[in-house]
């Protein structure tokens, strides 16, 4: 059984979908951390489907929306990295209170995985960390994604009237990037970016944080073709301290990766779930 609910974080009412169990297995509950901007919309189904599998295994789960995202209160533009990490902590506390579990596992997808790493380094009750294709460098990712906004200009104006660097400068200065009445300070075709958000992703330095994480960690590279995990993720995995955490980096191959507009329509990721379940079994969750 699942239950839709609202809980508080930093003065905002956040939406959550709670999957309860009568007796939490190993007193362990899972908080699911969604991705960034447009990815959050399509990844929602994939997370909720997996939540039901975890629930069937006996674990309570909470999937939630960050402030300014989806069904939660607030404005997207105000969701900064520290605020989103606060939301993860609020979700973890809500889950503990509702389910009676004492230990928390954080599972994140894409930017949600990166945020889960930051939140993981701040928690004492963390038991496991599952990272589905984390973004090792948030700023590099966001800057690359701004290409879409540039591409949009060629359709709208037959020209690139404002470059990515100019957009970033305008955002930082709190100025709109106005072209023919459109404010192009946005990403993924329309999510507005704010100065505080940009500053907060530029501030993220995962290296010192990863080394402090002391729980079993799974990192999955989700691909559409067989192959090794990317260099980027191999380097990211090396950032964890071998003394502190047992880290496994693996690959799952799906017909379509949720955040890409592929040839197949998928609302769940069976291979990704299989890979994660198998790791959980081997690690006694």
């Amino acid at each position: 059984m699942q239950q839709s609910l609202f809980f508080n974080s930093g003065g905002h009412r956040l939406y959550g979908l709670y999957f309860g169990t009568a007796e939490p297995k190993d007193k362990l509950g899972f908080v699911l951390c969604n991705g960034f901007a447009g990815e959050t919309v399509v990844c929602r189904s994939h997370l909720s489907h997996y939540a039901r599998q975890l629930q069937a295994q006996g674990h309570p789960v909470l999937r939630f929306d960050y402030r300014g995202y989806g069904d939660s209160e607030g404005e997207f533009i105000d969701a900064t990295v520290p605020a989103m990490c606060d939301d993860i902590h609020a979700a973890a506390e809500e889950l503990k209170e509702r389910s009676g579990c004492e230990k928390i596992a954080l599972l994140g997808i894409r930017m949600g995985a990166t945020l889960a790493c930051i939140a993981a380094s701040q928690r004492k009750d963390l038991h496991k960390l599952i990272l589905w294709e984390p973004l090792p460098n948030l700023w590099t990712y966001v800057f690359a994604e701004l290409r879409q906004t540039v591409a949009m200009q060629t359709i709208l104006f037959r020209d690139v009237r404002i470059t990515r660097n100019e957009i970033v400068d305008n955002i930082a200065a709190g100025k709109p990037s106005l072209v023919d009445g459109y404010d192009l300070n946005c990403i993924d075709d329309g999510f507005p970016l704010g100065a505080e958000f940009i500053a907060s992703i530029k501030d993220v330095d995962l290296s010192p944080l990863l080394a402090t994480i002391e729980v079993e960690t799974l990192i999955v590279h989700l691909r559409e073709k067989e192959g090794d995990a990317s260099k980027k993720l191999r380097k990211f995995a090396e950032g964890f301290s071998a003394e502190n955490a047992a880290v496994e980096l693996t690959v799952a191959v799906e017909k379509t990766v949720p955040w890409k507009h592929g040839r197949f329509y998928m609302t769940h990721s069976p291979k990704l779930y299989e890979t994660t379940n198998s790791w959980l079994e081997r690690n006694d969750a």
Partner: protein
Amino acid sequence: MLEAFDFDSQGNRLSGILHRPALSPGQTPDIGIIFANAGARGRLGSTFQYPLYARAFTALGYPCLRFDPHGIGDSEGNIEISAMPDFYGSLQTGRFVKDTVNAISEFKKRVKPKKIVLLGICGGAITSLLAAARESSIDGLILLSVPVLLDAEGQAEVDRLPSGYARQYLWSAYGKKLLSPKAWKRIFSGKSEFSTIFNYGRAALKGLLPQKKAKSQAKEIEKHPMFNEHFHESFTSLVTSGTKVLFLFGEGDALRWDFQQQYQDLFWQENATYDTQSEIHYLNGCNHLFTLREWQHQALDLAKPWLDSLGE
């Protein structure tokens, strides 16, 4: 005020969000609005536009329900893995209609509005239309980027591209580059997207070639091979029974050409009620999914007076 709740539909628990306006005790809202799922975006819509619309409508006193149909977002149920065109085709022929009809019943129980409007974008628009035709209590429809043709496996990409749109796209994307040495360098180094250029080029040329004339002079309408008969049947039955329809299209959307050429040009003169019951707007520069906030606010500005007149 937001309420999160779950309700039953065809054996699945569906997840819904109800936006309640501040009303005096005992006051019944004039109009309630239900949002229908578009693609994989469920109750959020692209760039979170459904919550944005719902907040704006609620501030005007209209309660709104957004929900995820089965298998999408937070709702239970499974959708089999399928090729994209097959999924979209299933949506255009009613995959989520029963869930939408059940959502209407749930909304009526919880809110009891005097009139109900369904709103949807793309797949959500065609779902709204099909559901309204199967539910007698729908008074109005707000349809953004509604498709009149079916997607299906085996349909050539070139058939999906209206020639007018293809010409506009090629001119926008490549016209200026004809004088750019950098662009020619990309072509000769094989870096250009040849398949896109080829497909759009073929579609653009197709529209310039003389079309085969029908052998018979009979007044039979020559429909597109992928024309969605469900669209025509539902639309006709709704407008003749008094339902009002607001059509909104992005000026830069391929589907608006489909609507104009494959529907309006062929059918509109058949029935005077099409015109009297409908209002159609083309938003300057706007794309298929109304992704920019500016376009979303333009859509709201057009919807508000239309809702006011429906409530009178």
